[in-house]
């Protein structure tokens, strides 16, 4: 029995979950903690200090999804992240300085000041910048996957979105087309149960996003999105399935948005007990506990890791803060191709 002939959902039932090796688990912990710390600085420090203007959207409590799904992609695979997927950018190798400069509108940012916050892309890192019309990256991911098929490449696309995006027509058009054309795409939903202020039951009448997978004739799977090892396991199977030429999978990660929609939103519409419940399921602490229990890392090792992460971010902030703003006239540049 292998992933080349059995769909990923069935395979999971047959085999039970697989686990990544210790080295990968420690890498996963590192990136999740790095995301948490970086986004805390962005939202709770730099934004409040007025050093970041505009919108700030973080993925606190959802770090497991981007990290677990992207950690074992190949460099030539492509990621189409959404707005709570900081882990994807870090894992793909975008530097802290580039990211921080992006948030601060500097010329050295990923978009040279042309776009804000998580709206970052880099072809060098095979990262596709999403746009605010969430769900638009689904047809684009389909086209990327189509190009791999056309060229006979065994590359895959990891395409991410939230529960709210699944209400958009582009999402349905893209999923259907990817399914019809058997494009090598893994569609991964972070179902954090709120789209801005709108709770899930006002977003969809089905219970699970993954319930929609059979309507497109593709495998669908629900995982605990706060269990990074479960996310990793489901992603690995779906990646293998796509790489083997069998087409897309829809993975739904159940999670919770531990913040408002954005930094200006106090999420007063969310019942406090929901935050309490999900706080106890925090993905980082869960992995830390499991790693310590298995002697894969010590408590002091975790503290060391945290200190290293903090000082790396301190350094990057110090550099990015001194980075120049774009020239005002840069407004006019790069609308069209320009001879260099």
């Amino acid at each position, binding site marked *: 029995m292998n992933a080349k002939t059995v769909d990923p959902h069935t395979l999971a039932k047959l085999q039970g979950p697989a686990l990544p090796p210790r080295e990968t688990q420690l890498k996963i912990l590192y990136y999740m903690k790095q995301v948490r710390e970086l986004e805390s600085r962005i939202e709770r420090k730099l934004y409040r200090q007025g050093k970041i203007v505009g919108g700030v959207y973080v993925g606190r409590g959802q770090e497991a999804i981007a990290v677990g799904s992207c950690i074992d992609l190949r460099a030539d695979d*492509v990621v189409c992240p959404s707005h709570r997927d900081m882990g994807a950018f870090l894992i793909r190798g975008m530097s802290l300085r580039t990211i921080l400069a992006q948030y601060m509108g500097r010329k050295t940012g*990923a*978009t040279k000041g*042309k*776009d804000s916050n998580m*709206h*970052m*892309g*880099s*072809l060098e890192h095979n990262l*596709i*910048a999403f*746009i*605010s*019309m969430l769900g*638009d990256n*689904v*047809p*684009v*991911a*389909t*086209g*990327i*996957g*189509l*190009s*791999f098929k*056309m060229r006979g490449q065994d590359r895959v696309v990891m395409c991410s979105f939230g529960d709210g995006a699944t209400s958009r*027509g*582009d999402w349905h*058009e*893209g999923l*259907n*087309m990817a399914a*019809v*054309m058997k494009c090598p795409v893994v569609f991964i939903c972070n179902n954090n149960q709120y789209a801005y202020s709108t709770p899930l039951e006002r977003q969809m009448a089905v219970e699970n996003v993954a319930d929609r997978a059979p309507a497109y004739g593709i495998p669908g799977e629900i995982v605990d999105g706060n269990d990074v090892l479960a996310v990793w396991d489901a992603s690995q199977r779906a990646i293998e399935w796509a790489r083997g030429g069998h087409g897309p999978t829809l993975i739904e990660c159940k999670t919770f948005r531990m913040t408002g929609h954005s930094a200006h939103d106090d999420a007063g519409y969310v019942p406090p007990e929901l935050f309490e419940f999900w706080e106890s399921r925090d993905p980082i602490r869960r992995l830390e506990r499991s790693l310590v229990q298995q002697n894969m890392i010590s408590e002091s090792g975790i503290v060391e890791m945290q200190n290293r992460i903090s000082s790396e971010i301190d350094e990057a902030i110090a550099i990015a803060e001194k980075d120049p703003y774009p020239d005002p006239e840069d407004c006019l540049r*790069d*609308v*069209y*191709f320009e001879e260099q």
Partner: protein
Amino acid sequence: MALTTYVDAIRQGISEEMERDDNVFVLGEDVGIYGGAFKVTAGLLEKFGETRVIDTPISESAIVGAAIGAALMGLRPIAEMQFADFISCAFDQITNFAAKCRYRWGAGIPIVVRAPSGGNIHGGPFHSQNPEMHFVHTPGLKVVCPSTTYDAKGLIKSAIRDPDPVIYFEHKFLYRWPRVKEELPSDDYTVPIGKAALRRKGSSLSIITYGAMVYVALDAAAELQKEGIDVEVLDLRSLLPFDREAVLETVKKTSKVILLHEDTRIGGFAGELAAVISEEAFDYLDGPIRRITAPDTPVPFSPPLEEFFLPKVSDVLRVARELHAY
């Protein structure tokens, strides 16, 4: 040598580019087995195979989105909208994703979106529209509207080779119109995007137009010549970017200008042209800038209604006589 139709010229251009560059491919509704609703892509499936001529579900947004994704990976997709009217379904992918990628993060999107547009075929409100202005108003896109068979081929080739997204409006009325058949050069030629073509030289007044209206202008010009009114006809060919120099040159030459298009009036391209002319050539004008356009209504179906809707030779004659006498 055989005469080529406008529709065949588009197909030739696509086919030659597909031969020249393996990265060029076609996707859209019914473009493969059926050869396209208007047979623009007929025979391409047989020639290039189903990997490069792809029938898609009825999903305009996903067609353009998939084209964007493939372009990001280095391919050169040509996405067909079965009718230009349906491009509204892909508006978001075109205007927000494709048009802004280069500006935002330096990722060029070399796609062509082909859009069969225009009326005079009794298509009614949803098979006759001229939706070019939605895209002319979107920085990051290019918009072309060929009126001749030569340009249809030359501009599709330029559009395919262009590093930015190009919306290619092909006028359905011209597809098989015998009048626009012509002998095409056998060599590999292109028509540059952003360059107008002078279709008729004249000294009394200028008509600036594009698409199928070029022929309305030319027919009117022939009639007006009998009255001693010598009309110059400038065919824009591209709307974004448009040939500002050619526009100003003809206005400065004749000092009287009529702006003619099949699209509706408010927010039509004539408004932009009028603004540019008054800003940059006001001192040369000897009369008011006049517009001849479709009225601000949907495109109606019934023949007398559609005939009323479309700008006609008689409209041009009336306005030209008034302007000449001004």
